[in-house]
């Protein structure tokens, strides 16, 4: 058994920021456990720019953004173990991991930060008829083929789902000479950032077909084409609109799911909507001393927000280790009327910090207001020119407002159209 103050599971941007923050706060013995060969997480394959505008005020590519944190980490005494897979987190915060040099590792930690990221929803999560020949893959897998392995997975491409990774891959494949025929989106709006629709699709005249899905794939050994169809308001395909589109590659960009096998095994309850653990304002889960941040907690579209959230978790973990973290009576948070979820799910009434409530809306709104209420009273209301599901929003709640709320209060956030 090795002793550490803090064990961080996952060495992506979330894990690195949490570890660095805890180290800045004076925590001495920190270990970061990463199952891949290098630190950086999914950023290593995101070679486009657009990272770090908020945090560094510069437009960096994924590897550059990760590179800055890797450098910062090298200048600390944080222990990094790559090629190390975490298998289990026990009730007493003992972390079990395995790697080639140490074999089975048992780490006793005062606090644990979960930063395992997310993975893409695979095809199995969808119901598309047809064989499973080569040429069907998630957009993230295609991103790895092209950007890491230097290999083009196809030449005539249809993309299902207009999430950011799908949009980015539409441009990437086009630049490398492939023909991207279309991006189909089941919903009447895109799930990606507007800037990506402009610079990844419109720049290259790639059609975005809204309210459209892929109903069947064709081809035995290799994909030869797909059948697409429009959907009605209930998202059911309309048979008369079916159309055959020849292609050799179908990329799926249909959402990300937090990687929470470890969290579930550790007995943490997951939020029904975010699929991440339920946390307080310092991102402490329901298990004392276990914190969570980054995409394992909620799917982020901007890595800058991942960094910000992970610093909160790192600070929380440091406070916990030093015995300074407040945990007592909590008030709850709840998203209603168009607000799908809120992170954090609870806030300590005597908290020592102002709290940002992060949320996503379930539809597109223009000129709407975000209204925050508790016990029938409005705490704040904020006008928004535009709200859309693809972009995470937040409202800031002052700590004295929180302190003045009675026990068992619930703060609700809603959209007023």
């Amino acid at each position, binding site marked *: 058994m090795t002793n550490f103050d803090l064990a961080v599971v996952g060495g992506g941007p979330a894990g690195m920021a949490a570890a660095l923050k805890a180290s800045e706060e004076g925590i001495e013995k920190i270990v970061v456990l990463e199952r891949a060969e290098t630190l950086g997480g999914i950023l*290593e394959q995101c*070679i*486009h*720019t*657009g990272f770090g*505008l908020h945090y560094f005020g510069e*437009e*960096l*590519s994924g*590897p*550059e953004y990760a*590179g800055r944190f890797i450098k910062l980490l090298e200048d600390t005494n944080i222990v990094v173990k790559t090629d190390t897979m975490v298998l289990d987190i026990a009730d007493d915060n003992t972390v079990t991991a395995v790697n080639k040099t140490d074999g089975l590792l048992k780490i006793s930690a005062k606090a644990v930060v979960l930063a395992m990221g997310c993975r893409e929803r695979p095809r199995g999560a969808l119901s598309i008829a047809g064989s499973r020949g080569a040429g069907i893959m998630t957009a993230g897998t295609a991103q790895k083929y*092209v*950007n*890491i*392995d*230097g*290999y083009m997975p196809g030449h005539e491409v249809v993309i299902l789902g207009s999430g950011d990774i799908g949009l980015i891959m539409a441009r*990437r494949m086009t*630049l*490398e*000479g492939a023909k991207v025929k279309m991006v189909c989106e089941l919903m009447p709006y895109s799930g990606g*950032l*507007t*800037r990506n*629709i*402009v*610079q990844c699709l419109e*720049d290259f005249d790639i059609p975005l077909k809204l309210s459209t899905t892929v109903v069947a794939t064709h081809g035995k050994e290799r994909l030869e084409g797909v059948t697409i169809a429009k959907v009605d308001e209930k998202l059911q395909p309309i048979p008369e609109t079916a159309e055959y589109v020849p292609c050799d590659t179908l990329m799926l960009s249909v959402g990300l799911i937090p990687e929470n096998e470890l969290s579930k095994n550790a007995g943490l309850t997951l939020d029904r909507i975010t699929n991440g653990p339920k946390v307080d304002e310092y991102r402490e889960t329901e298990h004392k001393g276990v914190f969570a941040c980054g995409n394992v907690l909620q799917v982020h*579209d*901007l890595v800058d927000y991942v960094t910000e959230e992970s610093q909160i978790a790192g600070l929380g973990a440091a406070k916990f280790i030093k015995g300074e973290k407040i945990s007592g009576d909590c008030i709850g948070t709840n998203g209603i009327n168009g607000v799908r979820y809120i992170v954090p799910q609870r806030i300590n009434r005597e908290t020592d910090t102002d709290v940002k409530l992060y949320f996503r809306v379930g539809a597109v709104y223009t000129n709407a207001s975000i209204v925050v209420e508790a016990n029938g009273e409005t705490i704040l209301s904020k006008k928004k*020119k*535009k709200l859309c599901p693809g*972009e995470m929003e937040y409202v800031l709640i002052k700590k004295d407002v929180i302190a003045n709320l009675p026990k068992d209060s619930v703060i609700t956030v809603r959209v007023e159209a």
Partner: protein
Amino acid sequence: MEKRELVCVACPLGCGITVTLGDGGEVLEVTGNTCKRGDAYARSECTAPTRSLTTTVRVEGGKAYVVPVKSAGPVPKGMMFDCMKVINQASVKAPVKIGDVVIKNVLGTGVDIVATNNAE
């Protein structure tokens, strides 16, 4: 006079911008932007659109197959595919460091293509 609606791509906020153009195509007014970068983006988009380019370059004699690169500044939008051709014909010898210039002054644009990751 002509009005053009744009979405600013200079940062992920994606502000909607309205540009008023004169008869000779000159920019008369820019509204809707939240910051200065939006103004600059809208002006360049209506006169000489540019984009930054990110892709990969083949690595020789190393463990990595390719190394990611970017244009150190924006290149004319119409030249993206020509730049890609040049970049796809190039290769670099391992090891490569973040920031290394892989191609100098690509196609006379005055913009260098630089590595955005290390490669061994």
